[in-house]
């Protein structure tokens, strides 16, 4: 089980779409075109794309506050994502979610939870739902090393294991929960080993190697579809930027040479370029993909810029599917 030539091409395309989207998004954020906070996925592209490529279009994923990579990795369009970052009505969430919540339901995303660990039960519930409805869909939840210390991690994996739910618990371990290292916050640093305590398979994989991540996830997906229950995958990865762009910490929390080493020697995009060239892809093939991706990102930025800002009068829209006397008007409010 490994990536076909077509999947390799698609893996490279999606990783590059995340990388370029984030590079351009970071610039726009620094220039003030994107408000709020910006959590870039640069460095974690192989973990995201390797996991997503093992899924079908109708499988579910749930993500995290570092939410830009997941919809792109699952095959989503860039335009609505960029427009959302800019707070436009044409954004995927109509300007209500923003950077930490780029959930695109068209590619099976059920939510991008900025409450750390909050999305894990949602995926467990989607897996339960697939079992009740009798489909062979699976649900994969991304979460970080920080979330692995939340109760939702333990509770949901336990229930999924007890009930043999078709769920994949996928940890993007980038070593730091904001500034708190795994070394100082986990009694035992290999999160994947915790699987043993739940009686399910646990795999630790090089998160900078898209092929290895794909293989591990595909195995877990196959098991889930067979009805044999969930798996835990820990992808050891690294975020190249700060927790959020522009966030400076008073004291350094990670060694500068560690960052330099990852950027220089463990860049997942560069590593996969080498794999592809070694496998016989022509440089011109890769350039064609790069040009296509650059054009798509440029188009997304233009789409975002052209989109209208929301009308403040519409702020109540989407609160209820079935609003009853909502928003409630009061004499006090109209005064």
């Amino acid at each position, binding site marked *: 089980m490994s990536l076909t030539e077509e999947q390799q091409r698609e893996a490279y395309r999606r990783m590059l779409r995340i990388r370029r989207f984030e590079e351009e998004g970071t610039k726009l954020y620094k220039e003030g075109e994107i408000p709020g906070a910006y959590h870039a996925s640069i460095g974690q592209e192989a973990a995201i794309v390797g996991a997503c490529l093992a899924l079908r279009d109708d499988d579910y994923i749930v993500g995290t506050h570092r939410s830009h990579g997941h919809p792109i990795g699952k095959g989503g369009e860039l335009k609505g994502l960029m427009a959302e970052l800019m707070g436009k009505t044409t954004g995927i969430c109509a300007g209500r979610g923003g950077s930490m919540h780029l959930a695109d339901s068209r590619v099976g995303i059920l939510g991008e939870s900025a409450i750390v660990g909050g999305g894990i*039960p949602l995926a467990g*519930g989607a897996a*339960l739902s697939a079992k*009740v*409805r009798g489909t062979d869909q699976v649900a994969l939840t991304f979460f970080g090393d920080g979330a692995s210390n939340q*109760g939702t991690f333990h509770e949901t994996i336990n229930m999924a294991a007890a*009930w043999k739910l078709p769920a994949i618990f996928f940890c993007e371990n980038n070593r730091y929960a904001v500034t708190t290292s795994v070394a100082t916050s986990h009694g035992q640093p290999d999160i994947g080993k915790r699987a043993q305590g739940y009686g399910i398979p646990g795999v630790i994989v090089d998160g900078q190697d898209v092929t290895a991540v794909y293989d591990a996830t595909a195995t877990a997906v196959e098991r889930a579809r067979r009805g044999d229950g969930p798996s835990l995958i820990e992808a050891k990865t690294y975020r190249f930027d700060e927790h959020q762009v522009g966030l400076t910490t008073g004291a350094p929390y990670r060694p500068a040479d560690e960052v330099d080493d990852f950027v220089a020697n463990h860049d997942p995009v560069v590593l996969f370029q080498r794999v592809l060239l070694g496998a016989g892809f022509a440089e011109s093939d890769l350039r064609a993909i790069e040009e296509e991706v650059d054009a798509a990102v440029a188009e997304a930025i233009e789409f975002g810029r052209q989109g209208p800002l929301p009308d403040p009068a519409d702020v109540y829209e989407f609160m209820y599917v079935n609003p009853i006397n909502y928003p*409630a008007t009061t*004499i006090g409010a109209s005064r």
Partner: protein
Amino acid sequence: MSAVTAQAQRLSYMDAIVQAQVEEMERDERVILMGEDLRIYGDGKVQDAFGELRVWNTPISENSFTGMAVGAALTGLRPVVSLSIASFSYLAFDQIINQASKLPYMTGGQMTVPVVFRFALYYNGSIAAQHSDRCHSMLMNVPGLKIVAPTSPADVKGLLKSSIRDDDPVVFVEDSTLWGVRDEVPTDPDLLVPIGVGEVKRTGSDVTIVAISGAMRPTLAAASALEDEGVSVEVVDPRTLVPLDKDVILRSVAKTGRLVVVDVAHRTCNAAAEIAAMVAEEGFDHLQRPIVRLSTPDVHIPFSPVLEKPLYPSKDEIVAAVKRLR
């Protein structure tokens, strides 16, 4: 013994809850139940009838099984989550507030969360502070939820059915002091009580009492006692706290000019406070006397019965409050 007529059957409030769930599960295969000890719910007959894929007997993991219900709701099911005693719902507040209430909005309407969170206000039984909370009003401060708190067997059935059929997340508040109340309940499985519509439970002309959840029993007893003394009390049941049927309250206050609001929650920022503020803003011109609120004082619920019993609004306290307004 249930006396069955063509249109109605005499049921307890508790039996009406079970009946509502069973009828909705029969009607719609997307309806599932989740919660602790559901294996023995309804004497085990519910899981026996519908199977383990419809009745999920969960481990004691409130936050995550609630979140799993939200995930199931996002993907085509209509879960009814039993959080048991209200105090336990705090463990699930993260998923109720941060996920269920916010996902439809934060995704720009891509997601819908048709889920019901049930819990029971379970107090006045010497079970002390960690089991006795009446926390319905805390969740009134969270937009995106609907909050239902019926007081009669017919309403609890009709409103639970409406809640299950609603496409928004609904918090369904039961009051354990009402579980044993028996009354006529319609047998028609499609007879619903609409969310957001209050009801005048007793008509009167001198004073309006708005009674929330378990406060209804002492309020109705007080109204009867006051009638014997020549005071005509109108009793209004909001039935739904969010959205609140302001009209039914304001119409009554316009008639009586006097308002007492009774709530078993702690006093500060409770449902009675919201209703009192609403009437002060929108019905001030109708008021002939200041609004009176009767609530549980801001103290934790003690174990010793002699300490606990006097804390909740009683019939005598309500009678005295009404008399002060005359």
